[in-house]
């Protein structure tokens, strides 16, 4: 029987594993990207390809060692490079002599037939369409549960009394959701998990800064690629809000645009009226919205040489001036070190604190 794998993006792998197993596939869960993954990845990929491509190449090579022969991945229609990555990965892998089948899932709105074919190829258990829809619904619920849990952890972490408590409980709670199978179980696991996070001893009076994270979806969602930036910020006493989660993004890109997506577009339109691919316009729109909601600062994450984010960064300078909100950008690649990043983050947070203190006129701002 063929073994199948997929790109890993944060904790979402728990859902994809369940869904692909439901369809009757033998799934190999991709390991968390490590130093070795990167070393393997950068050996064979172009130097200026973006970070996600390199990590994924490493992941594929690692899972090939584990015996997979099929890879499911997402497609795209441009102008972001990510749409071509499946093609390049396939070429590189066959150039290295690996015979791997690639199933590329294109957006169903634009390529309905292609989408149908990929789903058929994945449906090893020959489940009826009705059955597939039920499985999708359950997988979707699980994805939402994972996203909700992560969102709450970002709120609890800066307020926790004992450092590291949240991360510990969060890891445990992820396993509960992982083990839930039916919809009822997922809902139950989710509410228990949220309760467990909420019951962590917190300091309600703590003065917490609010920072929005915008940028490219992969480096936003995969902690191994952004060097656990949310955790670092949480430990520095900063509440983080990520602009993008897999559930929201999938909804916007697979079928209908949500009102949320349209608001972001409108917010960005005075600065960038054109869709430039990737998440360039979203980064600008979210920055404007966060500024209006009174956030203290914005952090933009982007892979090195990411074209849409370079365009966005150029324009964000103006947004930052217009709305008086500080923006810090990280261009991430395999050379980014955790210590350097922490130093920059600490300095940024210190500046934000000073700015807040100055604005509110309070002399002693303690954290």
């Amino acid at each position, binding site marked *: 029987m063929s073994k199948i794998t997929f790109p890993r993006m944060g904790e979402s792998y728990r859902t994809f594993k369940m869904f692909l197993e439901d369809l009757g596939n033998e799934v190999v869960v991709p390991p968390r990207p490590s130093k070795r993954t990167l070393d393997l990845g950068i050996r064979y990929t172009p130097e200026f390809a973006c970070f996600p491509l390199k990590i994924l190449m490493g992941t594929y090579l690692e899972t090939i060692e584990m015996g997979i022969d099929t890879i499911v991945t997402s497609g795209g229609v441009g102008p972001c490079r990510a749409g071509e990555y499946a093609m390049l990965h396939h070429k*590189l892998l066959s150039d290295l002599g690996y015979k791997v089948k690639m199933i590329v899932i294109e957006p169903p709105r634009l390529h309905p037939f292609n989408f149908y074919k990929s789903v058929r190829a994945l449906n090893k258990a020959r489940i009826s369409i009705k059955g597939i829809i039920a499985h999708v619904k359950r997988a979707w619920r699980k994805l939402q549960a994972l996203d909700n849990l992560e969102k709450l952890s970002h709120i609890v972490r800066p307020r926790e009394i004992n450092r590291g408590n949240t991360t510990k409980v969060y890891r445990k709670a992820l396993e509960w959701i992982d083990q839930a199978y039916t919809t009822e179980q997922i809902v139950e696991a989710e509410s228990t998990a949220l309760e467990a996070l909420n019951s962590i001893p917190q300091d309600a009076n703590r003065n917490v800064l609010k920072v929005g994270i915008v940028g490219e979806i992969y480096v936003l969602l995969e902690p191994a690629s952004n060097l656990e930036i949310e955790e670092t910020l949480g430990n520095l006493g900063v509440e983080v809000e990520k602009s993008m989660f897999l559930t929201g993004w999938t909804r916007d890109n697979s079928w209908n645009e949500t009102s949320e997506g349209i608001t972001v577009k409108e917010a960005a339109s005075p600065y960038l009226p054109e869709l430039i691919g990737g998440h360039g316009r979203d980064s600008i729109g979210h920055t404007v919205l966060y500024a209006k909601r009174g956030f203290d600062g914005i952090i933009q994450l982007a892979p090195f040489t990411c074209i849409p984010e370079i365009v966005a960064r150029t324009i964000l*300078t103006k947004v930052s001036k217009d709305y008086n909100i500080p923006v810090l950008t990280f261009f991430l690649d395999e050379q980014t070190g955790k210590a350097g990043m922490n130093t920059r983050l600490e300095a940024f947070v210190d500046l934000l604190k000073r700015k807040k203190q100055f604005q509110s006129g309070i002399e002693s701002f303690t954290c």
Partner: protein
Amino acid sequence: MAVKVGIPNALLYYIYYPLWQAFFNEIGVQVVTSGKTTKDILNNGVREALADACVPVKIFFGHVMGLKDRVDYLFIPRVVCVNRKTIYCPKFLGLPDMIRHSITGLPPVIDIRMDSRQGYFAMLKAYTEIGSIFNASKHSSFRAYKKACRTLNRYNKLLQSGWNPHEAMSLLRKPGSLSKPPEPSLNFAVIGYPYNIYDSFISVNLLDKLRRLGVGTITTENISPLLLAWQKNCGLPKRLFWTFSDRALKAAHLLFKQGRIDGMLHLTAFGCGPDSLLNKFIELEAKKYKNIPFMTLMIDEHTGEAGMSTRLEAFVDMVKRRKEALACLK
């Protein structure tokens, strides 16, 4: 005094300048260009643009800096798609916005959106809209556009008969003023984007250097679009999304297949997004054609004249020797 419109000598200049110039002149507007790229232009661009942007974009910033105080309008159209299939690089799509939000003291920017996917007459509409900014009637805009298209056709014909854009532009002004150089002993394909290859400052005089070494060059612009279209998707499941990259990949495939060239150079800019894919695809294809040597040249704002010359001379010598050795074997 006539209204002056500034067109920077960078990026799309090498593809569309004859059309734009003819169009503006026809509706009674004077066109001002920023001239050849110089050290100052580059320095200005590097200072204004984001460090992570690629050299051609930095140079574009520099050209805009040089133009902005001399003109009444800046012409930076948002060219999205002209062939209904491929689009331009995201940096072209966001170009007017990048310029507007990072350079201060700009004259009004004409950033008409050109997207042929919106309908058969989308381009004509875009040009009438430009005309209306200068109070040209629809009729005269239409006539000017027609005439400009004819000029562009003539220009493209000149390119396809082997001239480079600078020569073709002076031939458009004064037909028959240039004579063809003698047939060289070696022929190289130079794959890359027109705004890198033909800007003699960024490419460190690549074409001239090759000519002095006795090497003739053929570029993507010298190949008829029909021949390129015939390559379909180059054996890939999807075409490359970006117009210039798609054309370059097709040109590389075609030239490899024809086998009339002695070597292939790929000129790429440091940090170019689309090129990271394009270069790998060409490299993988080059592996199949062992008789055509392939080399990648990377340029950025620090590229030195000497380093480039050494690499080119070595490559040319190697190809020459190989050709002589092969001739002896026969």
